[in-house]
Protein backbone atom coordinates (compact mmCIF):
# COMPACT_ATOMS: atom_id res chain seq x y z
CA UNK A 1 0.00 0.00 0.00
CA UNK A 2 1.37 3.43 -0.93
CA UNK A 3 1.47 6.64 1.09
CA UNK A 4 -1.25 7.93 -1.23
CA UNK A 5 -3.49 4.93 -0.41
CA UNK A 6 -3.04 5.53 3.33
CA UNK A 7 -3.86 9.21 2.81
CA UNK A 8 -7.11 8.28 1.05
CA UNK A 9 -8.09 5.93 3.88
CA UNK A 10 -7.45 8.67 6.46
CA UNK A 11 -9.34 11.22 4.34
CA UNK A 12 -12.36 8.90 4.39
CA UNK A 13 -12.20 8.61 8.18
CA UNK A 14 -11.89 12.38 8.53
CA UNK A 15 -14.95 12.97 6.32
CA UNK A 16 -16.92 10.47 8.42
CA UNK A 17 -15.85 12.12 11.67
CA UNK A 18 -16.80 15.61 10.48
CA UNK A 19 -20.06 14.19 9.16
CA UNK A 20 -22.79 16.67 8.24
CA UNK A 21 -20.40 19.57 8.60
CA UNK A 22 -18.13 18.28 5.86
CA UNK A 23 -17.84 20.97 3.22
CA UNK A 24 -16.76 20.06 -0.31
CA UNK A 25 -14.34 23.00 -0.18
CA UNK A 26 -12.46 21.13 2.54
CA UNK A 27 -9.45 19.24 1.29
CA UNK A 28 -7.36 16.54 2.91
CA UNK A 29 -3.76 16.53 1.73
CA UNK A 30 -0.43 15.56 3.31
CA UNK A 31 0.11 19.10 4.62
CA UNK A 32 -3.45 19.55 5.96
CA UNK A 33 -3.38 20.44 9.66
CA UNK A 34 -5.95 18.81 11.95
CA UNK A 35 -6.18 21.93 14.07
CA UNK A 36 -5.79 24.93 11.76
CA UNK A 37 -7.25 23.54 8.52
CA UNK A 38 -9.79 20.94 9.61
CA UNK A 39 -10.52 22.49 13.03
CA UNK A 40 -11.07 19.06 14.51
CA UNK A 41 -12.54 19.14 18.02
CA UNK A 42 -10.86 16.93 20.60
CA UNK A 43 -13.84 14.53 20.69
CA UNK A 44 -13.66 14.29 16.86
CA UNK A 45 -9.96 13.50 17.13
CA UNK A 46 -10.88 10.67 19.50
CA UNK A 47 -13.34 9.31 16.91
CA UNK A 48 -10.61 9.50 14.26
CA UNK A 49 -8.17 7.67 16.53
CA UNK A 50 -10.75 4.91 17.12
CA UNK A 51 -11.23 4.53 13.34
CA UNK A 52 -7.47 4.39 12.70
CA UNK A 53 -6.99 1.81 15.46
CA UNK A 54 -9.90 -0.34 14.27
CA UNK A 55 -8.77 -0.26 10.63
CA UNK A 56 -5.01 -0.75 10.97
CA UNK A 57 -5.07 -3.03 14.02
CA UNK A 58 -3.08 -3.24 17.21
CA UNK A 59 0.34 -3.01 15.59
CA UNK A 60 -0.43 0.64 14.77
CA UNK A 61 -0.48 2.11 18.27
CA UNK A 62 -1.87 5.49 17.25
CA UNK A 63 -3.08 6.46 20.73
CA UNK A 64 0.23 5.45 22.31
CA UNK A 65 2.09 7.53 19.71
CA UNK A 66 -0.10 10.61 20.32
CA UNK A 67 0.20 10.24 24.09
CA UNK A 68 3.96 10.67 23.80
CA UNK A 69 3.66 13.97 21.89
CA UNK A 70 3.64 17.36 23.59
CA UNK A 71 0.43 19.37 23.40
CA UNK A 72 1.85 21.87 20.90
CA UNK A 73 2.99 18.98 18.69
CA UNK A 74 -0.50 17.50 18.73
CA UNK A 75 -2.01 20.86 17.83
CA UNK A 76 0.42 21.28 14.90
CA UNK A 77 -0.08 17.70 13.65
CA UNK A 78 -0.66 17.25 9.90
CA UNK A 79 -2.40 14.43 8.06
CA UNK A 80 0.95 13.59 6.40
CA UNK A 81 2.59 13.00 9.79
CA UNK A 82 -0.12 10.50 10.69
CA UNK A 83 0.32 8.81 7.28
CA UNK A 84 4.06 8.55 7.94
CA UNK A 85 3.43 7.12 11.40
CA UNK A 86 1.06 4.48 10.02
CA UNK A 87 3.57 3.63 7.27
CA UNK A 88 6.39 3.35 9.83
CA UNK A 89 4.46 0.62 11.66
CA UNK A 90 4.40 -1.69 8.66
Amino acid at each position, binding site marked *: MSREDTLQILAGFIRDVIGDEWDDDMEVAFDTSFSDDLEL*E*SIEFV*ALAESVQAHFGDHVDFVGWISNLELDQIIALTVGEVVDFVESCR
Partner: protein
Amino acid sequence: MPLIELPDLRVHALSMGEGPPVLCLHGLLLGSLAQWYFTLAPALATRQTVWMADLRGHGRSSRPSTGYDLATLRADVAGLLDAVAVAEPIDLVGHSYGGLVALTFAMQHPGRVRRLVLVDLPLPPGDAGVFDIAENAGPEELLAMLPEAVREAVLGGGRRARRLVEGIRALVQDTTLLADVRSEPRLTDAQIAGVSASTLLVFGETSACRPAAERLTQCLPNSRLSIVPGGHFVPVESPQLLTSTIVEFLHG
Protein backbone atom coordinates in the same frame (compact mmCIF):
# COMPACT_ATOMS: atom_id res chain seq x y z
CA MET B 1 -18.86 4.66 17.47
CA PRO B 2 -19.72 2.65 20.62
CA LEU B 3 -23.06 3.94 21.87
CA ILE B 4 -24.83 2.25 24.76
CA GLU B 5 -28.60 2.54 25.02
CA LEU B 6 -30.02 3.42 28.44
CA PRO B 7 -33.72 4.21 29.02
CA ASP B 8 -33.55 7.94 28.19
CA LEU B 9 -29.97 8.23 27.01
CA ARG B 10 -27.43 7.04 24.43
CA VAL B 11 -24.05 6.96 26.19
CA HIS B 12 -20.86 7.30 24.19
CA ALA B 13 -18.35 5.11 26.04
CA LEU B 14 -14.94 3.73 25.10
CA SER B 15 -12.51 1.37 26.75
CA MET B 16 -8.76 0.89 26.51
CA GLY B 17 -6.49 -1.81 27.92
CA GLU B 18 -7.15 -4.84 30.11
CA GLY B 19 -7.17 -5.43 33.85
CA PRO B 20 -9.08 -4.21 36.92
CA PRO B 21 -11.60 -1.58 35.76
CA VAL B 22 -11.33 2.18 36.16
CA LEU B 23 -13.97 4.66 34.95
CA CYS B 24 -13.11 8.30 34.14
CA LEU B 25 -15.77 11.01 34.32
CA HIS B 26 -15.40 14.56 32.99
CA GLY B 27 -16.93 17.84 34.19
CA LEU B 28 -19.97 19.74 32.88
CA LEU B 29 -20.18 22.15 29.92
CA LEU B 30 -16.60 21.97 28.57
CA GLY B 31 -15.77 18.35 29.34
CA SER B 32 -15.85 15.17 27.26
CA LEU B 33 -14.06 11.85 27.39
CA ALA B 34 -11.46 13.36 25.04
CA GLN B 35 -9.80 15.00 28.06
CA TRP B 36 -8.67 11.53 29.25
CA TYR B 37 -8.27 9.68 25.95
CA PHE B 38 -4.76 10.75 24.89
CA THR B 39 -3.28 11.33 28.36
CA LEU B 40 -4.51 9.48 31.44
CA ALA B 41 -6.21 6.59 29.64
CA PRO B 42 -3.18 5.14 27.78
CA ALA B 43 -1.08 5.46 30.97
CA LEU B 44 -3.63 3.56 33.08
CA ALA B 45 -4.38 1.10 30.26
CA THR B 46 -0.99 -0.55 30.75
CA ARG B 47 -2.49 -2.34 33.77
CA GLN B 48 -6.24 -1.66 33.80
CA THR B 49 -9.34 -1.63 31.64
CA VAL B 50 -9.96 2.09 31.34
CA TRP B 51 -13.56 3.07 30.68
CA MET B 52 -14.36 6.61 29.58
CA ALA B 53 -17.85 7.96 29.05
CA ASP B 54 -19.38 11.21 27.82
CA LEU B 55 -21.90 12.39 30.43
CA ARG B 56 -25.44 13.08 29.17
CA GLY B 57 -25.53 16.17 26.98
CA HIS B 58 -21.77 16.12 26.39
CA GLY B 59 -19.37 14.84 23.72
CA ARG B 60 -21.08 12.24 21.55
CA SER B 61 -23.69 11.14 24.08
CA SER B 62 -27.28 12.25 23.48
CA ARG B 63 -28.63 15.42 25.09
CA PRO B 64 -31.84 14.78 27.07
CA SER B 65 -33.50 18.00 28.26
CA THR B 66 -33.48 16.90 31.91
CA GLY B 67 -31.52 14.74 34.35
CA TYR B 68 -28.37 16.74 35.10
CA ASP B 69 -28.79 16.24 38.86
CA LEU B 70 -26.31 14.01 40.68
CA ALA B 71 -28.88 11.26 41.35
CA THR B 72 -29.61 10.86 37.63
CA LEU B 73 -25.94 11.15 36.64
CA ARG B 74 -25.14 8.40 39.18
CA ALA B 75 -27.92 6.25 37.73
CA ASP B 76 -26.37 6.79 34.28
CA VAL B 77 -23.04 5.51 35.62
CA ALA B 78 -24.69 2.47 37.23
CA GLY B 79 -26.60 1.80 34.01
CA LEU B 80 -23.41 2.05 31.97
CA LEU B 81 -21.49 -0.32 34.27
CA ASP B 82 -24.35 -2.83 34.11
CA ALA B 83 -24.56 -2.51 30.32
CA VAL B 84 -20.85 -3.23 29.85
CA ALA B 85 -21.00 -6.01 32.49
CA VAL B 86 -18.57 -4.47 34.99
CA ALA B 87 -19.66 -6.08 38.24
CA GLU B 88 -16.46 -5.95 40.27
CA PRO B 89 -15.52 -2.87 42.33
CA ILE B 90 -14.03 -0.12 40.17
CA ASP B 91 -11.65 2.76 40.54
CA LEU B 92 -13.51 6.01 39.81
CA VAL B 93 -11.77 9.12 38.50
CA GLY B 94 -13.79 12.32 38.22
CA HIS B 95 -13.05 15.95 37.41
CA SER B 96 -15.29 18.78 38.64
CA TYR B 97 -18.94 17.64 38.52
CA GLY B 98 -17.68 14.25 37.39
CA GLY B 99 -15.82 14.18 40.72
CA LEU B 100 -19.08 14.85 42.56
CA VAL B 101 -20.72 12.02 40.63
CA ALA B 102 -17.82 9.76 41.67
CA LEU B 103 -17.88 10.83 45.34
CA THR B 104 -21.64 10.45 45.73
CA PHE B 105 -21.58 7.17 43.77
CA ALA B 106 -19.13 5.87 46.39
CA MET B 107 -21.55 7.01 49.14
CA GLN B 108 -24.48 5.27 47.53
CA HIS B 109 -22.70 2.13 46.29
CA PRO B 110 -19.74 1.53 48.65
CA GLY B 111 -19.42 -2.05 47.44
CA ARG B 112 -18.98 -0.99 43.82
CA VAL B 113 -16.04 1.40 44.35
CA ARG B 114 -12.48 0.36 45.05
CA ARG B 115 -10.57 3.64 45.01
CA LEU B 116 -11.46 7.26 44.21
CA VAL B 117 -9.60 10.02 42.41
CA LEU B 118 -11.39 13.35 42.84
CA VAL B 119 -10.04 16.24 40.79
CA ASP B 120 -11.01 19.85 41.57
CA LEU B 121 -14.66 19.30 42.46
CA PRO B 122 -17.00 22.01 43.79
CA LEU B 123 -18.50 21.84 47.28
CA PRO B 124 -21.25 22.44 48.05
CA PRO B 125 -22.44 21.13 44.67
CA GLY B 126 -25.09 23.82 44.12
CA ASP B 127 -22.53 26.50 44.85
CA ALA B 128 -20.31 25.54 41.94
CA GLY B 129 -18.42 28.81 41.84
CA VAL B 130 -17.62 28.42 38.18
CA PHE B 131 -21.31 28.51 37.26
CA ASP B 132 -22.12 31.47 39.50
CA ILE B 133 -19.20 33.45 38.16
CA ALA B 134 -20.19 32.53 34.61
CA GLU B 135 -23.70 33.89 35.03
CA ASN B 136 -22.57 37.36 36.09
CA ALA B 137 -19.43 37.72 34.01
CA GLY B 138 -19.02 39.78 30.86
CA PRO B 139 -17.63 38.26 27.66
CA GLU B 140 -14.02 39.18 28.50
CA GLU B 141 -14.23 37.60 31.95
CA LEU B 142 -15.87 34.50 30.50
CA LEU B 143 -13.04 34.14 27.99
CA ALA B 144 -10.45 34.63 30.73
CA MET B 145 -12.00 31.75 32.71
CA LEU B 146 -11.50 29.24 29.92
CA PRO B 147 -8.42 27.05 29.68
CA GLU B 148 -5.94 28.48 27.18
CA ALA B 149 -6.48 25.89 24.43
CA VAL B 150 -10.25 26.43 24.54
CA ARG B 151 -9.87 30.21 24.65
CA GLU B 152 -7.70 30.11 21.53
CA ALA B 153 -10.26 27.96 19.73
CA VAL B 154 -13.03 30.45 20.57
CA LEU B 155 -10.95 33.45 19.53
CA GLY B 156 -9.95 31.69 16.32
CA GLY B 157 -13.58 31.59 15.20
CA GLY B 158 -14.53 29.02 12.59
CA ARG B 159 -16.09 25.59 12.84
CA ARG B 160 -14.57 24.49 16.15
CA ALA B 161 -15.54 27.73 17.91
CA ARG B 162 -19.10 27.47 16.56
CA ARG B 163 -19.43 23.89 17.79
CA LEU B 164 -18.02 24.73 21.21
CA VAL B 165 -20.32 27.71 21.72
CA GLU B 166 -23.35 25.85 20.36
CA GLY B 167 -22.67 22.91 22.69
CA ILE B 168 -22.61 25.18 25.75
CA ARG B 169 -25.60 27.20 24.55
CA ALA B 170 -27.67 24.06 24.05
CA LEU B 171 -26.84 22.74 27.52
CA VAL B 172 -27.57 26.05 29.23
CA GLN B 173 -30.70 27.02 27.27
CA ASP B 174 -32.27 23.73 26.14
CA THR B 175 -31.72 21.61 29.26
CA THR B 176 -32.27 21.85 33.01
CA LEU B 177 -28.52 21.63 33.69
CA LEU B 178 -28.07 24.97 35.48
CA ALA B 179 -31.26 24.60 37.53
CA ASP B 180 -30.28 21.04 38.44
CA VAL B 181 -26.83 22.15 39.59
CA ARG B 182 -28.27 24.98 41.68
CA SER B 183 -30.87 22.83 43.42
CA GLU B 184 -28.43 20.07 44.31
CA PRO B 185 -28.61 19.36 48.06
CA ARG B 186 -25.55 20.03 50.21
CA LEU B 187 -23.44 17.11 51.35
CA THR B 188 -22.93 16.85 55.11
CA ASP B 189 -19.54 16.13 56.65
CA ALA B 190 -20.98 12.88 58.04
CA GLN B 191 -22.06 11.77 54.56
CA ILE B 192 -18.61 12.49 53.14
CA ALA B 193 -16.91 10.79 56.11
CA GLY B 194 -18.89 7.64 55.32
CA VAL B 195 -16.74 7.04 52.23
CA SER B 196 -14.06 4.56 53.21
CA ALA B 197 -12.50 4.04 49.78
CA SER B 198 -8.88 5.09 49.50
CA THR B 199 -9.03 8.54 47.87
CA LEU B 200 -6.63 10.79 45.99
CA LEU B 201 -7.64 14.47 45.92
CA VAL B 202 -6.07 16.70 43.26
CA PHE B 203 -6.79 20.44 43.22
CA GLY B 204 -5.57 23.34 41.11
CA GLU B 205 -3.59 25.86 43.15
CA THR B 206 -5.62 28.88 42.02
CA SER B 207 -8.97 27.14 41.45
CA ALA B 208 -12.22 28.58 42.83
CA CYS B 209 -12.93 25.05 44.09
CA ARG B 210 -9.91 25.08 46.47
CA PRO B 211 -11.98 25.39 49.72
CA ALA B 212 -13.38 21.91 48.99
CA ALA B 213 -9.84 20.47 49.21
CA GLU B 214 -9.47 21.24 52.93
CA ARG B 215 -12.98 20.05 53.76
CA LEU B 216 -12.59 16.77 51.88
CA THR B 217 -9.16 16.15 53.40
CA GLN B 218 -10.61 16.58 56.88
CA CYS B 219 -13.74 14.50 56.26
CA LEU B 220 -12.38 11.60 54.20
CA PRO B 221 -10.61 9.22 56.57
CA ASN B 222 -8.50 7.58 53.91
CA SER B 223 -7.37 10.39 51.63
CA ARG B 224 -4.32 12.26 50.47
CA LEU B 225 -4.16 15.64 48.79
CA SER B 226 -2.05 16.85 45.90
CA ILE B 227 -2.06 20.52 44.84
CA VAL B 228 -0.95 21.18 41.26
CA PRO B 229 -0.17 24.51 39.56
CA GLY B 230 -2.99 26.21 37.67
CA GLY B 231 -6.74 26.61 38.01
CA HIS B 232 -9.88 24.52 37.75
CA PHE B 233 -9.31 22.79 34.41
CA VAL B 234 -6.55 20.48 35.68
CA PRO B 235 -6.93 17.77 32.99
CA VAL B 236 -6.41 20.41 30.28
CA GLU B 237 -3.96 22.71 32.11
CA SER B 238 -1.66 20.07 33.62
CA PRO B 239 -2.39 16.80 31.80
CA GLN B 240 1.05 15.27 32.32
CA LEU B 241 1.35 16.10 36.01
CA LEU B 242 -2.21 14.94 36.65
CA THR B 243 -1.54 11.70 34.80
CA SER B 244 1.67 10.93 36.70
CA THR B 245 0.01 11.78 40.05
CA ILE B 246 -2.93 9.46 39.34
CA VAL B 247 -0.73 6.67 37.95
CA GLU B 248 1.43 6.80 41.09
CA PHE B 249 -1.69 6.54 43.28
CA LEU B 250 -3.40 3.74 41.34
CA HIS B 251 -0.34 1.77 40.18
CA GLY B 252 2.40 2.88 42.58
